[in-house]
């Protein structure tokens, strides 16, 4: 068995197609793109291995067999490849008819292959002992075969003209590789028709396969210009490095000279290569390096911007302008929302942006949590790309992470000059994303400290007003005193008059009536003074921050609920509240009075607010009138007090149930309702300070029952 160069070329082709076919199709077995390429490689492999076996055949019979076998592989190559290109260009549905015809053609040819109409026989041509001769059907077959091939190249031309960026790059690779590879393979055919041209181009098929595989698998393609430049320089440099010593050897026949020259050139080779490569690339990449420098400078300037709005606008503006993009958009997750909202965007065309956001549960966000570095949109799995909700075509996605926390991300469109993004671009984006994350974090922190400062000012103001409570109360008490004295004196004066003038009054029923009425008025005056006084007392007591806050004692729960009632009347500015208090005979409980007062007040307030919301709900739906009800109950067991606050209000939604006790959580929008800190504070009071328990039972629109359990003390 003689292994010639031709046999070897077949074997090498076979190995490359097998290896790359497996590599590509295993990367994503379900992707039809990868699959069709895998099939192309399969047919190429069959062809190549058969080619090898044909070349090493010792007799005509086996040679003929292998010829037919290799044609079986060759028949399907253009068909599978055509299918692959259709999928790549997304025109599979449009070319369905032609695809079906092509497959049909292939199957017919396959059947014909094992007849003499295809491969008639084998005979000696040039230095090949058993080269096949064409049968009758072979010529029409070849014509159609080449047509399919030409068609592949043809349909690639228009998309190349019409696309930009990475996709275009990919197609260019494919285009040139196809021409190159097929021309190489086509060098096999002349000899079939007794044209004495050896199939020297056969080995180029491996080159074609390698290039196509590269184009599919690696999305980050070197700019094709750079690829050609590097290839060209390599060819020249290494051609010289290898070739010169051989020429010297051939001319001078001096092994020593040749070897020393080879050694010198081999050591210089890489340096020369790098020198020329740098020169070439600095020319090609000059424009790119320029904007990359600008971007990096801008990145450093970002950190000084404290306003998140301005920063976002700055980022997209810099990106779009410096790189010259179709658009740049930035999404940020503010204030622990559960979504990433579009914060700023600059685009060559106007787009409605107000509703665009990605929820935290979106598969895209999940994908980002696994990919912290900038990446191409095309790299994402199909199911994410399909669920992507953005009106423009996104080319690059740059996440901005602070540690493991995704602060936001940037979308970039294609470059307007059609150039694709390069590895260098990606590296610049990596740096940018870190700077951007820092700057965004800065802004958020800045805003939060501003907000908390505002809260502090507000709290300070309230505290100072609270501090004035004593003074205000004092003033009001003095005025109330006047009312009380005046009312009392009015009553006294009338009683004295009655006593002194009983005859007069007896004879004047009208006068009697008047006096009775006046007495009623004075009584009402004094009574209302008392009521006002008790409200003021309640507020003052509540507002006092005494040093003995942590003082445990036994006290009446009724006092606490009464006080809460008064406070609520003040807060909600109404005269009557639908609150019932059933405490049983013994309403004494053990705890820190001021804190329990605050807790009960908060809980009753919440219950009352819930009934108000329910009222709004039933009004909206025109349902029968709703009777609000809030009830406070007290039960004692051996070692515990159990307080129940129940309402028939709006209830708690399932999704809110585990947030109820969280600080700052509130479903109310009214400014009067406070900060949402009430229930959180109550929980802490009950659990931490009293070692008690608090829980609730609730259903949306059905009402809520809160339970507070306090251990009995002594």
């Amino acid at each position, binding site marked *: 068995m003689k292994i010639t160069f031709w046999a070897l070329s077949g074997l090498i082709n076979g190995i490359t197609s097998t290896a790359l076919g497996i590599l590509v199709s295993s990367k994503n077995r379900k992707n039809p793109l990868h699959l069709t390429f895998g099939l192309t490689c399969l047919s190429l492999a069959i062809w190549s291995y058969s080619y090898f076996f044909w070349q090493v055949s010792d007799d005509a019979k086996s040679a003929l067999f292998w010829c037919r076998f290799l044609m079986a592989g060759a028949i399907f190559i253009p068909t599978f490849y055509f299918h692959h290109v259709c999928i790549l260009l997304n025109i599979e549905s449009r070319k369905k008819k032609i695809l079906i015809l092509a497959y049909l053609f292939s199957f017919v040819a396959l059947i014909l292959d094992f007849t003499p109409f295809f491969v008639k026989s084998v005979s000696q041509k040039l230095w090949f002992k058993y080269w096949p001769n064409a049968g009758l059907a072979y010529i029409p077959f070849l014509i159609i075969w080449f047509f399919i091939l030409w068609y592949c190249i043809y349909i690639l031309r228009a998309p190349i003209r019409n696309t930009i960026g990475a996709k275009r790059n990919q197609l260019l690779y494919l285009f040139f590789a196809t021409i190159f590879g097929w021309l190489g393979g086509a060098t096999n055919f002349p000899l079939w028709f007794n044209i004495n041209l050896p199939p020297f181009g056969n080995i180029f098929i491996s080159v074609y396969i390698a290039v196509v595989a590269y184009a599919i698998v690696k999305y980050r393609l070197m700019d094709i210009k750079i690829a050609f430049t590097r290839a060209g320089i390599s060819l020249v440099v290494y051609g010289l490095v290898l070739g010169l010593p051989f020429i010297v050897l051939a001319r001078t026949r001096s092994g020593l000279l040749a070897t020393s020259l080879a050694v010198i050139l081999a050591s210089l080779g890489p340096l020369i290569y790098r020198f020329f490569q740098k020169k070439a690339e600095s020319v090609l990449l000059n424009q790119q390096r320029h904007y990359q420098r600008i971007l990096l400078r801008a990145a450093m300037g970002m950190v000084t911007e404290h306003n998140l709005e301005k920063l976002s606008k700055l980022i997209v503006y810099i990106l779009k302008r410096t790189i010259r993009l179709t658009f740049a958009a930035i999404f940020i997750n503010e204030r622990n929302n559960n979504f990433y909202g579009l914060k700023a965007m600059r685009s060559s065309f106007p787009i409605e942006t107000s509703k665009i956001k990605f929820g935290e549960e979106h598969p895209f966000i999940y994908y980002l949590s696994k990919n912290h570095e900038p990446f191409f949109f095309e790299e994402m799995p199909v199911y994410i790309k399909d669920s992507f909700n953005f009106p423009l075509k996104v080319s690059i996605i740059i996440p901005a992470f602070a540690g493991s926390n995704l602060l936001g991300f940037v979308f970039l469109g294609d470059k307007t000059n059609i150039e694709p993004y390069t590895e260098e671009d990606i590296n610049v984006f990596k740096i940018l994303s870190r700077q951007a994350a820092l700057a965004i974090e800065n802004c958020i922190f800045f805003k939060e400290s501003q907000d908390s400062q505002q809260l502090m000012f507000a709290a300070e103001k309230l505290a100072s007003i609270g501090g004035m409570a004593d003074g205000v*109360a*004092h003033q009001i*008490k003095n005025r109330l005193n006047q009312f*009380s*004295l005046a009312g*009392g*004196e009015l*009553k006294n004066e009338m009683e004295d008059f009655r006593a002194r003038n009983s005859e007069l009054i007896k004879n004047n029923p009208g006068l009697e009536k008047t006096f009775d009425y006046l007495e009623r008025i004075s009584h009402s005056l004094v009574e209302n003074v008392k009521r006002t006084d008790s409200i003021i*007392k309640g507020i003052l007591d509540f507002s006092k921050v005494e040093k003995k806050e942590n003082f445990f004692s036994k006290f009446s729960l009724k006092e606490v609920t009464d006080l809460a009632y008064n406070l609520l009347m003040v807060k909600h500015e109404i005269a009557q509240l639908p609150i019932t208090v059933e405490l049983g005979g013994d309403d004494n409980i053990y705890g820190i009075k001021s804190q329990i007062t605050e807790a009960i007040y908060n809980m009753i307030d919440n219950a009352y607010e819930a009934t108000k919301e329910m009222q709004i709900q039933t009004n909206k739906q025109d349902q029968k009138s709703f009777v609000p009800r809030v009830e406070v109950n007290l039960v004692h067991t051996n070692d515990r007090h159990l307080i129940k606050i129940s309402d028939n209000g709006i209830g708690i939604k399932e999704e809110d149930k585990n947030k109820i006790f969280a600080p700052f959580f509130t479903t109310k929008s009214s400014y009067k309702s406070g900060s949402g800190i009430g229930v959180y504070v109550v929980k802490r009071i009950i659990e931490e300070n009293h070692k008690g328990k608090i829980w609730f039972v609730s259903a949306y629109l059905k009402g809520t029952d809160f339970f507070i359990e306090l251990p009995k003390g002594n």
Partner: protein
Amino acid sequence: MKILVIDDEVEVGVFLCDFLKRLGLEAEKATCGAEALKMFALVNPDWVFLDLKMPDIDGLEVLRKMKEINSGIQALIITGRDDELSENEAHSLGARDYLIKPIDLDELRTKIKKYILNT
């Protein structure tokens, strides 16, 4: 029985004096600490009804001074200041009772009957 009513609000004095007169007691009024001490020397009352918050001197200070002049003077504090500290101090100075404004005249009548009229 002579009673001196001391309160910086004029009308308190007017109303309380009329009220006391109805009960058959003699009553005079003063509206500041200085005036109170002057009246105290002039009228020589048995009882003082005293407000604590006054423009010139604090009520308890006035009481202290009065005690120096006449240690047997009886005092009833009528004030808006509702804190234990002042109450304790008032009691330690010999005040018989400590009433918080607003005053209910019926309650006051009961107290007067108890302390002054002994009925």
